């Protein structure tokens, strides 16, 4: 699909080489772009340095977006030019890939800080240490059954001698770059020219997951790239004439989709859904009828069936835990939406605990509007070509319609953002639906750029281009703002109850002290944020609290009352839980994420007066006779639980004088 507005003879004047960057004058242009890149990176670095000092500061956001805009907008402008060559576009897209990885790299250059990163770090460590896959995983148990990412990382560690985090950074960076290249290849395979395909990749970069979530060391970061490449190979297989080329791309589709199945559950399910939509489109005669269309449809259905079989087979035989892991989200989300619609629940208040400034919130809402404008612009372009006969029935038409359908699924999915349980799922689905949306947006954007460039009056031309730039900037800012909160995106002081700002030198020291003192693999009870560190760098096995294993009952018991129900002690004793690690701030602070232990904890831990229920209830552990406090720092205390309790009796009355001696060796 070569996107171009109707060119009149006089309009084409502005496309003549006198307006182009000519051969002899290329270097000032390159230097200007290079200066923008350098200044942009400096601004991003500045934003992170500003962020370190304060909890949240508007200056950090301004510096950050100024930097990102400086780095990305000039490159996008060059990509959008009609005269830019395909190879140059690819090279510039790679630079955008590197630039868009900078925020995450600078956020945690030396160690994991996101929730899932801790889990994958530990899973990788276990493979390196034991030489085996499928060891029980800490923090997120389901990842043990999807070893794609951490197995690859472990091999890089083994072969290169890099640390786990260095190897992970290299692998995720390569996946991030390959993701953009995959979108371009997919765009080309479904019929876009190189400009529209590269613009599709740029548009995809505005989705909520792109800048931070899909650059973290997590299985989804690798699998989303595999999904895109699976779809690209799938499209190539469909577009290829039957014969060796089709077989080749079918083989690659099979390999990539199986790779996806062993890497991540949800994205593979979403991949299957997209392939299903495409297969349906390829089976509709009105869209797909052309030479050999039945054979193409059969190929598509077979590949879809294979992908479905791969993920179903993997779940059934190797990862049955996936069903229990995923099903509550969808069920609860639908239930909450129903309650919202019936008026019995008010739903989720967006940005209620956000640290980001108001204009990011507006941009986050604005991105849906911008996406709608671009999608609404892209669809008529497709339909016009269909009606005019320039998009004849066949594989290309079916593929474009299929991806347009996938893209339009983004808009109904935004409703789930109002449901507490559905918000996370909705956000994750955008990484997929934006593939289709990016195709539509690219069609519209390429057309708009040409349309704006053809305005005869300079004021009209620059106004149109300015509006386009503003819309791109809004999508860039809003897409990221709709994804992750500022506590994940920016460094800063300690923030209780935030996954990404809970790691402190004190917690690190405690975890390392415990590891050095007792060794790895001890079962312990602790809160979510302490558990991240203990289960990863501390190499311990932390409890997974649930309604059947309510470890929070240890904390909520009032002083003088017996701890927990007997069933809890049965589980603790039989499970060989020997340690309790207490973060004392649990008694004074309300967590940013609203969770102390796990998402399934009771909702009344914060009392109406704003105080945590644990206030005044932690000192009791010092008097529990079956516990020994073996460590205390400013904010943490470690207790050894001598279970089963009650077998030892203690002296309670003054006895004969007991005299000891304190000796200190400085």
């Amino acid at each position: 699909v070569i996107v171009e507005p109707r060119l009149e003879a006089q309009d084409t004047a502005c496309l003549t080489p006198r307006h182009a960057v000519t051969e002899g004058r290329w270097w000032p242009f390159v230097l200007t772009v290079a200066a923008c890149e350098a200044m942009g990176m400096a601004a991003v670095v500045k934003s992170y340095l500003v962020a370190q000092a304060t909890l949240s500061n508007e200056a950090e956001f301004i510096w950050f977006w100024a930097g990102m805009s400086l780095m990305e907008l000039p490159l996008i402008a060059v990509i959008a030019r009609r005269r830019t060559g395909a190879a140059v576009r690819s090279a510039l897209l790679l630079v955008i890939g590197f630039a868009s990885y900078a925020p995450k790299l600078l956020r945690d250059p030396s160690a994991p800080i996101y929730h899932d990163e801790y889990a994958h770090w530990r899973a990788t460590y276990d493979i390196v240490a034991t030489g085996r896959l499928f060891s029980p995983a800490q923090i997120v148990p389901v990842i043990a059954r999807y070893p794609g990412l951490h197995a690859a990382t472990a091999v890089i560690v083994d072969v290169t001698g890099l640390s786990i985090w260095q190897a992970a950074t290299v692998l995720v960076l390569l996946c991030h770059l390959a993701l953009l290249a995959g979108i371009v290849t997919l765009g080309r395979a479904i019929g876009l020219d190189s400009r529209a395909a590269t613009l599709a990749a740029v548009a995809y970069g505005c989705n909520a997951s792109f800048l931070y979530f899909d650059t973290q060391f997590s299985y989804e970061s690798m699998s989303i790239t595999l999904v895109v490449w699976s779809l690209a190979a799938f499209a190539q297989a469909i577009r290829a004439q039957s014969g060796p080329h089709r077989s080749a791309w079918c083989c690659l589709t099979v390999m990539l989709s199986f790779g996806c199945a062993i890497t991540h559950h949800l994205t593979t399910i979403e991949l299957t859904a997209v392939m299903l939509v495409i297969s349906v489109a390829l089976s509709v005669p009105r869209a797909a009828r052309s030479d050999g269309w039945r054979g193409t449809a059969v190929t598509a259905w077979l590949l879809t069936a294979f992908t479905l079989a791969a993920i179903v087979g993997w779940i059934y035989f190797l990862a049955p835990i996936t069903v229990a892991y995923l099903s509550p989200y969808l069920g609860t989300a639908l239930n909450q939406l129903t309650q919202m619609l019936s008026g019995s629940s008010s739903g989720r208040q967006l940005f209620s605990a956000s640290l980001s400034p108001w204009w990011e919130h507006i941009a986050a809402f604005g991105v849906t509007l911008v996406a709608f404008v671009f999608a609404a612009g892209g669809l008529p372009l497709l339909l016009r070509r269909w009606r005019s006969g320039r998009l004849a029935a066949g594989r290309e038409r079916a593929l474009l319609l299929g991806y347009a359908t996938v893209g339009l699924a983004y808009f109904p999915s935004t409703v789930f953002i109002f449901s507490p349980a559905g918000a996370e799922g909705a956000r994750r689905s955008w990484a997929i639906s934006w593939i289709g949306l990016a195709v539509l947006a690219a069609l519209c954007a390429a057309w708009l750029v040409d349309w704006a460039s053809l305005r005869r009056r300079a004021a009209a031309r620059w106004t149109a281009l300015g509006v386009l730039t503003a819309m791109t900037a809004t999508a860039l800012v809003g897409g990221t703002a709709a994804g992750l909160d500022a506590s994940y995106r920016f460094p800063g002081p300690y923030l209780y109850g935030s996954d990404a700002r809970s790691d402190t030198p004190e917690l690190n020291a405690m975890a390392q002290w415990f590891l050095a003192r007792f060794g790895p693999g001890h079962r312990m009870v602790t809160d979510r944020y302490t558990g991240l560190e203990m289960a990863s760098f501390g190499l311990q096995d932390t409890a997974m609290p649930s309604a059947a294993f309510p470890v929070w009952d240890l904390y909520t018991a009032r002083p003088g009352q017996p701890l927990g129900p007997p069933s809890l002690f049965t589980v603790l004793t039989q499970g060989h839980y020997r340690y309790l690690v207490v973060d004392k701030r649990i008694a004074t602070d309300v967590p940013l994420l609203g969770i102390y232990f796990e998402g399934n904890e009771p909702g009344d831990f914060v009392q109406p007066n704003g105080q945590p229920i644990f206030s005044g209830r932690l000192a009791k552990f010092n008097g529990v006779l079956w516990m020994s406090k073996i460590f205390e720092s400013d904010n943490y205390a470690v207790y050894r639980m001598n279970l089963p309790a009650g077998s030892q009796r203690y002296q309670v009355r003054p006895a004969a004088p007991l005299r000891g001696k304190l000796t200190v060796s400085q």
Partner: protein
Amino acid sequence: VIDLAYRLYQRIRLGYPWSGAWPCYLLVAFAALALTAVVPGGPARAVLAVPVLLGVPGALTLGAAQARRSVDATAFGALAVMLSALWLAFATLILTVLQVRISGVSVYVCLLLVCCVLAAAAQRQLRRRAAREPAVLPAREPADVLSVPDEIGASARRGAWYAVGGVLAGVALLGGGAVAYASAAHQAPAGYTWLAWSGAKADGVITVGAHGIALPFEITNEERGTTEYRLTASWTGGGTALALAAPRTLRIGGEKTVRATLSIPQPPGACAFRIVVTLTELGTAHPQSWSINAGVRASPGTDGPAGCAP
């Protein structure tokens, strides 16, 4: 010697040109990965090993699948990386099925075998293509992405160099940002103090023999400056704390660890005693304190006063 090396080079170059023997060259490159073991592990070895490890298996897969010419240079590189990463994961799965321990060596051997098969298949495809196919691909194939009539710019060969240029520019940009951030002044982390048992005996209820016992512990001051503390030891019973040892005052410098010991005689009777060591900060308006505790009891068979509580 130079002449001999030159002639050998020319003979290989002319006899086995890159375009006709690249799978074999890539296989040799992968086999040579073993040589990187002589380089110390870390970034230096990674610079040599990562391009091979995350490039060769995927590139050979594309060659074996006859898909090499269907995509441009950037896409080829990206797809090769993803396929290579998948091969790493698949190799670990194969080793798991074969019940072989996953290690650098076992994965290398497994991947070398895979690469041999892939290289043989890719080489065969090259020969078949050279024998059968004309250089020009059908016009409506996606393979024509490099020669779409409206495209202006580099040729396929130059396209690869543009991609390399993009990668180098990106690495410079990202590396520059990382170095600038690392070398900037960062906020100093908050200091802290901790107190912990350090001996192997301080777990559970400790049995004390007739000669008593010494319980070691350590105090670490991770504040910036010197801090003054009071160290006390007591035993608790009946809701009160009873002095166990004479208190000590100590000054601990910043980022220093001090080792200490609480020596106690054998407790009287059959009951356990809850002993507590407390460290209190001195010289501040709101002094913070830290404590550790343990249960101690005389060795079995010792009699004494009643008054035990569960």
